[in-house]
Structure formats: C-alpha cells, structure tokens
C-alpha cells in the first residue's frame, strides 16, 4: 500500500499501548514517543514501532491525519528507553561541516544550518540574506539561497536532504549576524532530516579544522 511510512510507524506504536513492547519498554513510553514523534524522522520510527507491536492499525490512522508539529524527541532505533534517548541527543548537538563551509547542528530531529567562521570571513560583511520559503524541499547539495556581501552574491548549498521548517527572521533587519555570530544567532535555516546517514557523513569539527588548514596552504 501507499501509506506514508511515517504514519504507519506512529500508529503502530499507539495501537500497541495495551501490550508490552518486545524489548521490555513500558507501553506508556511507546505512546509518549509516538505522540511527540515528528512525522519526518521516518527511519527511526520504523525500527521502534516494528519492535513494539503487531496490529491492525487502519482504524487508528485518522488520528494522525494532521501534521504533528511538536518538537520531537529523537528516537533511538535500538529501544524505547529514555536513557538511550538522552545519549543520542547529546551526541547530535555537535556541529558537523560540509566542504562548502556550512555547518549543521542536529537537535531533536531538526537540523539548524549556518555558515562557518571561515566562510563569513571569506565573504566580508553580509548585507542581505536570500533564503528559501518555509516548506521548500531540498536535496543535499541543492542551491537554497544566497548571501550578499561586498557586491557579491554567493550561493548557499543545502547540507542535507529535508524540508525547510524555519528561516531566521532576524537576518532581514540584521544580516550582519551572519558575520558576528555565525554559529549562534546568525543561523540561516532549520530543516528536517530525511536521511540521517547524510549527517554522519559530514565532517566533525576536528576534520573541518584540518580541511580549512589544507585550503589555506594551497
């Protein structure tokens, strides 16, 4: 059938609330995670829910016809336990980098994207940020906007595949935040993460430092 995978994952968890999950997690844990689960973190849900229960879920589907917008708790595919969850959250808060000098910070299944200090220095004072609309779907490496500085428009490339959920409105009046606070207040967009493996393949901070050293010595 052609149910979106995310719907299947969420409803199976809900139906399973009267039964114990295979791995010993309490049904209430499953339910809580199901409710908070973001519809876009498909792979995580699939693993969790399949272990929870097997059920006839078609009658439960209408409950999830609305998009769940609550910030999600990132689920570990291994088990529905809070302990695994918090470890995953800590790991995902670190910055990952692309070779186009963009960074991604993953928190709760949402990726925040910005440009690195190396990039903002190479650009000069940013005077304008051309960003996509919320809801825009992006493929990894796809152009999603441009930053203007010193009469130069430089294209931005999506570090991941996903959908834009938020853009930094502060940049409209204060584009210089990209220079002054490139890792914090100068963030550009937030997006969903359709393919978590893409995050894993990006450079961590140490690898990125090495990368920019190699550029400087060219």
């Amino acid at each position, binding site marked *: 059938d052609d149910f979106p995978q995310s719907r299947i994952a969420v409803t199976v968890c809900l139906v399973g609330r009267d039964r114990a999950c295979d791995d010993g997690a309490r049904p209430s844990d499953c339910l809580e995670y199901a409710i908070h689960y973001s519809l876009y973190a498909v792979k995580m849900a699939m693993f969790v829910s399949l272990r929870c229960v097997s059920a006839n879920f078609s009658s439960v589907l209408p409950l999830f016809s609305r998009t769940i917008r609550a910030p999600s708790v990132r689920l570990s595919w291994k088990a529905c336990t809070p302990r695994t969850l918090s470890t995953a959250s800590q790991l995902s808060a670190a910055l990952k980098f692309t070779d186009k000098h963009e960074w991604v910070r993953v928190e709760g299944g949402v990726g925040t994207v910005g440009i690195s200090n190396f990039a903002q220095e190479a650009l000069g004072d940013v005077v304008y940020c051309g960003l996509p609309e919320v809801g825009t779907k992006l493929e990894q490496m796809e152009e999603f906007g441009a930053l203007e500085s*010193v009469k130069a428009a430089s*294209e931005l490339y999506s570090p991941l595949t996903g959908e834009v959920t938020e853009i930094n409105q502060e940049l409209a009046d204060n584009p210089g935040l990209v220079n002054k606070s490139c890792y914090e207040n100068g963030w550009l967009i937030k997006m969903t993460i359709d393919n978590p493996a893409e995050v894993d393949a990006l450079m961590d901070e140490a690898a990125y430092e090495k990368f920019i050293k190699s550029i400087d010595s060219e």
Partner: protein
Amino acid sequence: MTALKAAVSVVNLGRIPYGRALEVQQRFVRQHLDSLFQFPNILLLCEHEPVYTIGIRQAMYSAEEENRLKNLGAEFYRTNRGGLITFHGPGQLVCYPILNLGCFKKSVRWYVCELERTVINLCHRFGIKASTSPDTGVWVGDNKICAIGINCRMYVTSHGLALNCNTDMRWFENIVPCGIHGKGVTSLSQELQREVPVTEAVPPLLEAFAEQFNCRLSFEDLHINKENPVTEK
C-alpha cells in the same frame, strides 16, 4: 613555493545584447562546474545597448519601476549578482571574468578587492587618482567611475565590472546608482576632459588585470557565435 601563474583566456564579445552575454556567461560557468574545474578561466569583454540591471535584492525594485525605466528606451534585467541597480550602455567597457577562484584564492571578499585594485591600477595608467570607499566600486572623489557586482557559485565567478569610458552619463540620472544617495558618477572622458573610447581602455585594463591577478592572458578564439549557443572549443 613559487606559484605558477594562472592562465586566463580573453574573449572580446564586442557589442552584444545583455541577455546574450548572460547566456554566454552562464554557459561558461556551467562548463567550469561540469568539468570539475578543468575548464579554462575566461575574461569576457563587451559593450551593451542601454540596459538597467539589478541584483538579488529584487524586492527593492517594483514592476512599476521596471516599466518606468523600460519606457525610457532601455532594457531591464533582474540578475543573480550582488549590488543594486546600475546602467550599462555604449561607451562603457564591461568585463566579466569567469574564473575558478580555486586557481587564485577561495575568497569572494579577496576577489572583489582585487577587481577594485585592477581598476584603480588602470585609472592610474590614465593619470586618474581613483580609490575604494566603504561602498564597493571604484571612485574618483565622490563619483563612481566603475561599478562592480558579481556572483560566485562553487567558487566560479560571473558578472564583473563596468567602467565608464565615454558613456552618455544622462542615463544614470534616471536611477540612484547602486542605491547610494548623495554621490555621483563619472567616466574616463569626464575626468580627462577628452573623448576616451572603450577601445582605448581595453589594453591597459588587460595589463592591470594580468598584473593584479598575477596571471597569463591569452587570446584564444572560443568560437562564440553571438546569435547561437556557444560551441565547444
């Protein structure tokens, strides 16, 4: 380590419609990207018929404004370069370097600065004292003699600079050039009080460019047909 000089091929497109020049540029940019940066660096030289162009800050110029300018007899283009509104027309030397900054320095700020220095170098050769200011471009006092606006996509540059040689400066009166109020525009002819055509400015511009970017210029024929799409060399 002695750096080898980067090679740049100069292509003189002559008088060419702005839209066609855009297509030529985009094709060269595409070839850089598709060939994984093995494509030669190119410096396009040309002159346009009257045209007003704007950059990525498109919301600042309404359809009404566009029509007003078109009614004056000029074309109007919305582009992907940085910078605000400017004018191109006969008597103005337009230069579009399509460079892979990987051959030079991977910094847009550096590149724009070098373009400014190239033009200051050229003005010096004419005995004109030009300078930069907090507003990008090349100035003689409070008057801009050369506008700059570029695009950079994966370190491949397009658009470039526009130097007023013997441009009819009245076209600039219809706009606030580059969105900068209270400043004016000038040309080589105005500064030297004599007619300085585009052809006179080309050789010193090329010399200044080669000097500033520390590159070797060559003049290859890339078979650019102004009417039809660019063919492979």
